[in-house]
């Protein structure tokens, strides 16, 4: 295999609640290499969201080491974590999280506001990203709340790509979309992966997981299965204890 993008060793996460400790992760070791396309599956409360936050550098583990593109996250302060997110991770959210009153272009440019990219290069990169997600050019100047769900998610994916991240982290990216639109978004991910992007999806839907190339199943804070999709027992898992809270109702974007 190639270079490790995600190198997590024995991650433990303990939340200090009022008087009660909640253990969300109990020793997760996971390595994902450049160019992989993996799904992290698990029911709610399994710790998959916590794992995603740590993988996306939004949170740090209580114990264990996490190296993202070779950098040890434990040694970074808030500013350096923000910088690492900015340069290394592209987030795609279930609820898209576009700025509703801003145009498509403005939304896609936003991650570059926090970098030193010049105005011209910004526009070029945003246009390239929007072309990569096949969004028609006439929509670029529309406000994002004028778009359909599938179009919004394409914009969100374009936004995740503009800083050329080594990892695209998508949290239930099809959760708010109907099946057909969800399929087209999954096609897009497959294409981006074929172009060499490293993509990690967090999902509870077996249908979505089957379209990736590797499945990591997590239950009660532990990895219980980690296999190539072809070999994984996804259907049974999905029909069995996969009773997640399903799709949460869509709320207005940020």
């Amino acid at each position, binding site marked *: 295999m190639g270079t490790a993008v995600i190198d997590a060793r024995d991650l433990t996460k303990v939340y200090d609640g009022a008087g009660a400790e909640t253990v969300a992760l109990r020793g997760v070791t996971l390595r994902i290499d450049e160019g992989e396309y993996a799904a992290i599956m698990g029911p709610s409360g399994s710790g998959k969201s916590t794992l995603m936050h740590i993988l996306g550098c*939004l949170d740090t583990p209580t114990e264990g080491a996490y190296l993202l593109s070779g950098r040890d996250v434990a040694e970074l302060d808030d500013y350096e974590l*923000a910088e690492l997110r900015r340069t290394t991770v592209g987030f795609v959210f279930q609820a898209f999280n576009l700025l509703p009153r801003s145009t498509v272009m403005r939304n896609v440019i936003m991650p570059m*506001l926090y970098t030193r990219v010049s105005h011209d290069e910004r526009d070029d990169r945003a246009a390239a990203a929007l072309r990569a997600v096949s969004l028609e050019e006439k929509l670029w100047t529309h406000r994002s709340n004028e778009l359909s769900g599938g179009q919004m998610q394409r914009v969100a994916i374009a*936004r995740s790509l503009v800083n050329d991240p080594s990892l695209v982290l998508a949290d239930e990216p099809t959760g708010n979309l109907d099946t057909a639109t969800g399929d087209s978004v999954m096609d897009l991910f497959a294409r981006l992966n074929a172009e060499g992007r490293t993509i990690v999806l967090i999902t509870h839907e077996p249908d979505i997981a089957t379209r990736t190339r590797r499945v990591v199943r997590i239950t009660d804070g532990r990895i219980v299965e980690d296999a190539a999709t072809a070999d994984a027992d996804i259907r049974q898992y999905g029909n069995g204890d996969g009773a997640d809270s399903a799709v949460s109702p869509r709320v207005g974007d*940020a």
Partner: protein
Amino acid sequence: MRFSDLISETLHSLTANKVRSGLTILGIVVGIASVIAMVAIGQGSQASIEQSIQAAGSNVLTVMPSAGGQSGPGVRMGAGSVESLTREDAESLAGLSLVTGVAPSSQGQGQLVAADANANAQFLGVTADYVKVKGLTVASGSFITGRDDEKNAQVVVLGATLAEDLFGESVDPVGKRIRSGNMLLTVVGVLKEKGTSGFTNVDSAAILPLSTCSRYVTGSEYLSSITLTIADEEQMDAAENSVSGLLLQRHGIASADYADFSIQNMADMLETVSSVTGTFTTLLAGIAGISLLVGGIGIMNMMLTTVTERTREIGLRKAIGADSSAISAQFLAESVTLTLIGGALGILTGWGIGALAASLLGASAIVTLDSVLLAVGVCAFIGIVFGYYPARRAASLSPIEALRYQ
């Protein structure tokens, strides 16, 4: 974040909710405008009061007769109501080293009858030096001369207003005759308009030689005041002491407590009035400042609401790589922008209100660079102070919690 991006993001989010931004700005406009207008009116009236005192000359001492014994027993009589000052007193005061000019005067009331008008006027009996000591200018003709005084000449110099009342605007009264009681006065001069200065309004006075006034108007040799000019404004106190000493000695009075005269020092008076009007201005500005404070709280309120409303946006921005300082800079920029826009409009509005109020009240309004700079400073300060807490709050949100916020 680049500065140009910060500005662009700020304007973008402020225009997203125009009504709310507008009302918040209005709060600041009212605050700043009232401070500017109040200070302008206060400083305007202060300046006009000081000007009228200074017109009388700030290096001037006025000696007036007064009942002896400031702290003594018995009925105290008002200044000018007793007879204690004489021409001899005035002549001896002229010998003091610090005194550069002496103008004794007596006052009376009388009816003046010209060819086709008459007026009730204040008579001033003066000597030739009066014009110099009071800083008057003769518009046409000449002033009372020493010779007029020696000869009890029946001549008169008219104040500008009085001349107009008696002869109309276009006529030069010099050479004309006026009757008053059993005097037949020849007009020898007209004064240039001066405005109220100190306690006497020379514009509506009929000025006679002192001897003429004593004989025909007041019927008394006593003076109603002696005006002195002093060489050096810095030595007003010293001059006042020597004048007081000399007069006490001449009147045979042992202690200044029993003096039969009082001395008014224009410099002291100017100082007192300045400090009173200064306090008044500060008071007005203070009251106006309260509305500025309220405007500031309005900003904080709006920014806090905004932070809550945009929690998910903040979470998103952090997730895609904005650090805390970029988030707080953005919110701080929004509140500072609101206050600066409000401040600029407030300065203009305040200026307008000040000018309007001044023209209605007949006073003047002065907007100084100081008060504008102060207002701008206060605006920026308010923007930062009242924007800081909401900005900190936005920056300290955890991205995970913020993204989850519904």
